[in-house]
C-alpha cells in the first residue's frame, strides 16, 4: 500500500479535475446528436402537433382551461417535485460510487456543486 503524506482532499479541486479529464464528445458526435434531434422533432413534432391540436380543439375551450387549468398545473408541479425527489438533478455513476463516494470526502460538499448548478442552470 502506498505511503506518502496525506492531506485533506479538496472536493472542489477534484470535481474540477474530473470535469476537465472527462473527454467531451467529438464534433462528429455533437453534430450527430443535433441531426438526430432535429430529425425526430421534425417528423414526430409534425405528427403529434397535427393530431394533438385537432383532439385538443374538441376538448379544450376557454371555459375548460379556466376550470381545469389550475388543477392540471398543480398536478404537473406535484409530478415534477416527485420526479425531483426520486430522480433528482444530482446523479452519481457506479464509478463515482467506487472512487468519489468511497473516498474520505464530505458527501455534502460532493453534492453541493452539481445541486447548485442544477438549481441555477436546470441541468
Amino acid at each position: 500500500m502506498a505511503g506518502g503524506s496525506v492531506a485533506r482532499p479538496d472536493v472542489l479541486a477534484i470535481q474540477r479535475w474530473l470535469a476537465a479529464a472527462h473527454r467531451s464528445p467529438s464534433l462528429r458526435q455533437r453534430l450527430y446528436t443535433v441531426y438526430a434531434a432535429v430529425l425526430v422533432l421534425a417528423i414526430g413534432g409534425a405528427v403529434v402537433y397535427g393530431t394533438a391540436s385537432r383532439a385538443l380543439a374538441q376538448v379544450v375551450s376557454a371555459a375548460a382551461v379556466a376550470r381545469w387549468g389550475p388543477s392540471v398545473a398543480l398536478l404537473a408541479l406535484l409530478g415534477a417535485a416527485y420526479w425531483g425527489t426520486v430522480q433528482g438533478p444530482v446523479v452519481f455513476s457506479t464509478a463515482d460510487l467506487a472512487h468519489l463516494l468511497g473516498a474520505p470526502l464530505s458527501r455534502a460538499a460532493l453534492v453541493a456543486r452539481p445541486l447548485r448548478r442544477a438549481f441555477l442552470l436546470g441541468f
Partner: protein
Amino acid sequence: MSRSAPAPLVTEGLGRSYGRLAALEELSLTLEPGECVALIGANGSGKSTAVRLIAGLLTPSRGTVRICGCDPYREPEAEAARAAVAVVPDAPLLYEDLSVHQHLELVAMAHGVDDGAIDGRIEGLLDRLGLGARARYLPRELSRGMRQKTQLACALIRPAALLVLDEPVVGLDPPSQALLRDLLLAAKRDGVAVLMTTHQLRFVDGVADRGVVLEEGRVADSGPWPELYARSVAKGWQSY
C-alpha cells in the same frame, strides 16, 4: 500508559435482510493489523453482502461495523472509515472516459495523497501490475483481467488499514494471481488487515490466517486457515 489503536475491522451481529430473505445473519468478526481472513462460501451465501456492508455501501439491517473504531454509516466519522478501508469490488467500477493513469491520479487526489512523487509511484505500481504500457488506455481498450488489475491498483495506490477484496482472482490469469498473492502478502507485512471473499481455496492457502465459511447467510464454520482448509476440502469443496 498507552492505549492500543482500535482494530482495523470489528463487526458485531452484522446482518442484512431483503424483505423476508436474510442475505446475511449475525456476522461477528475482528481483524487485527497484518491479519488476513478469507470469507468462503457458495454463490448466494452472503459473501458479497458482507463486503458491501463492511465497505459502507449497504446499510445493515442489524448489527454494527467499526473500521478503525469509526462507524462507516455515521457522518462525519464515516469519512475516517472511508479513509481507512480500500475496497476492490467483484466487477471493476471504472470511468469509461478516464485512462488507467487518470484513475490512479483521481484516487490519489481523493485520498489526499499528493507528495509530489505520486506520478513516480503510479508508474511503479502500474509497471509491477503489468499495466505500464497501457497507462494511457481507456477501460474499453483493456481486457477483463486488466480492468480488474486497474481496480486493484486504485486500492493499492492509497494508504489503508483494511483492504477488502471481493472475488479478486476472477478474470486473472495464473501469473497475475501469483502477483496478487505477493501483493497481499506484502500488504500484510506492512500491517494492513485483509478481508477477501473467494471460491478458490488454493489461492487463499498461504495468504489467509483465518477463514469463515458462509452458508445461506449464516456462519457455518470458522477457525485458523490450515484446519478450516482441511475441513472444507474434506467436505467436498472444490480446491482449485
